[in-house]
């Protein structure tokens, strides 16, 4: 259940936000692109060597096989991937909808719900879903969607609202239809903020998905839980470290995508 916040939410309205200037690829893009993967690869190697250096007992040996670990990883990626796609499919249209003129009065409500929603523990949501709907990865995915939809929703709203009204007026002034204004002006300009929200959401998702193990849906969390239940620190640490590395890797991936998709001149 890691919680990352989009940068935009940390700074109160009115405070000057450091602006980034540049066109296309910002200076140092390549350096930033490769540094994190190298560090993560080294961490993986260190983890591997550390496990190798330990005398593993039979339980540890059986849990930490290549097959088991890769299976857990695949399950984890599946949970995160499916739920994140669903989050995008739900949050972006919803964000667009509530920022339309006719919904103006609804967006404070959305924000109020969002701020309460922020404190709902996703651990609780997952357990609650398992309890009421049943066990299985399908319900875990529902719970993950619910737990990670907010950052994308609130950033879609924020990204669309930050656009100068004058710009939109100018666009309609030159004869664009509302749909054209949305697709040609608003969405491209909202993309960086929206993607920052997606990044937060994915990182949050990787963490929350570990909890799925408690309801038998597998994933890297199952290593952690096995370790905890069987009192085997090595397994716990391997599960924890792999989850952390996965979160950092996906964070890096979305961050780079975000950088690539940010319109020139922003």
């Amino acid at each position, binding site marked *: *259940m*890691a*919680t*990352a*916040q989009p*940068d935009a*939410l*940390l*700074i*109160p309205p*009115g*405070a*000057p*936000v*450091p602006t980034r200037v540049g066109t296309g690829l910002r200076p140092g893009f390549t350096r930033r692109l490769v540094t994190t993967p190298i560090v993560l690869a080294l961490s993986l190697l260190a983890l591997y060597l550390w496990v190798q250096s330990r005398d593993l007992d039979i339980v540890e040996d059986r849990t930490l096989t290549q097959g088991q670990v890769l299976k857990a990883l695949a399950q984890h990626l599946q949970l995160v991937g499916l739920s994140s796609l669903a989050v995008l499919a739900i949050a972006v249209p919803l964000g667009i909808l509530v920022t339309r003129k006719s919904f103006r009065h609804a967006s404070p409500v959305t924000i109020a719900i969002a*701020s*309460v929603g*922020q*404190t*709902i*523990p*996703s*651990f*609780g*949501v997952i*357990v*609650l879903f*398992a*309890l*009421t709907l049943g066990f299985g990865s399908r319900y875990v995915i529902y719970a993950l969607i619910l737990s990670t939809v907010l950052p994308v929703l609130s950033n879609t709203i924020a990204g669309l609202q930050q656009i100068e009204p004058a710009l939109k007026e100018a666009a309609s002034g030159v004869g664009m239809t509302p749909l054209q204004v949305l697709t040609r002006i608003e969405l491209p300009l909202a993309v960086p903020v929206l993607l920052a929200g997606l990044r937060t959401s994915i*990182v949050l998702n*990787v*963490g*929350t998905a*570990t*909890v799925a193990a*408690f*309801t038998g849906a597998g994933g890297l*969390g199952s290593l*952690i*839980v096995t*370790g*905890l239940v069987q009192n085997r*620190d090595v397994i*716990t*640490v391997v*599960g*924890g*470290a792999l*989850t*952390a590395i996965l*979160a*950092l890797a996906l*964070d890096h991936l979305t961050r780079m995508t975000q950088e690539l998709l940010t319109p020139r001149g922003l």
Partner: protein
Amino acid sequence: MSYEEYLGYFQEGLLRQFGDHLAVVLLSTLLGSIVGVSAGILVRHQPGPREIVLKVAGTMLTIPSLALYAVLIGILGLGWPPVLLALTAYSLLPIIQNTIVGLNSVSAPVLEAARGIGMGDKVRLVRVELPLAWPVILVGIRTAAIILVSTAALGAVVRGPGLGNAIYAGLNSIGSSVALYQVLTGVGGVVVVGLLLNAIFFALARLTIPRGIRD
């Protein structure tokens, strides 16, 4: 068992968990504020160290909490310590970030006037920069606290304090009639802690932000 009966039966424990939840969040926010504000003060003018500190704090926030708890119990054992340490680590990014933004947005003429009338670096920091940056810093601290409210719930799986224990108990008693009560009460309680914290920070802002810079 009805919900009333459940509440009556577990009242004492739930109240303690509620108090613990609030306490662990407040305590780690406090620790995070001390570390984060100090770090922000130290690196605010140096782009190099500033980037490193923000990167480290950002990385911490990226590490899933279950993973961090898991790794930390290897070092600190079960209970409060891993939870407290992990939560403190999670609180750092918003606090450091807002400390830096707040301090660096104090207007140049005000700083020049402070220097011009003979305030040294320390006096200026304490009497001018920090008070003026405080509203922004406080927003960072509140953001951190709100993040921690829900994160703390999972602490229960490493025998940490708080309302996560009610949820965890529900998980462990799946099938029994109280399971749902336990989970719902746990989740509801956490949300109430969040609302309470919002109120606390609202009051704190009223009390600590001078009228001259309140809007």
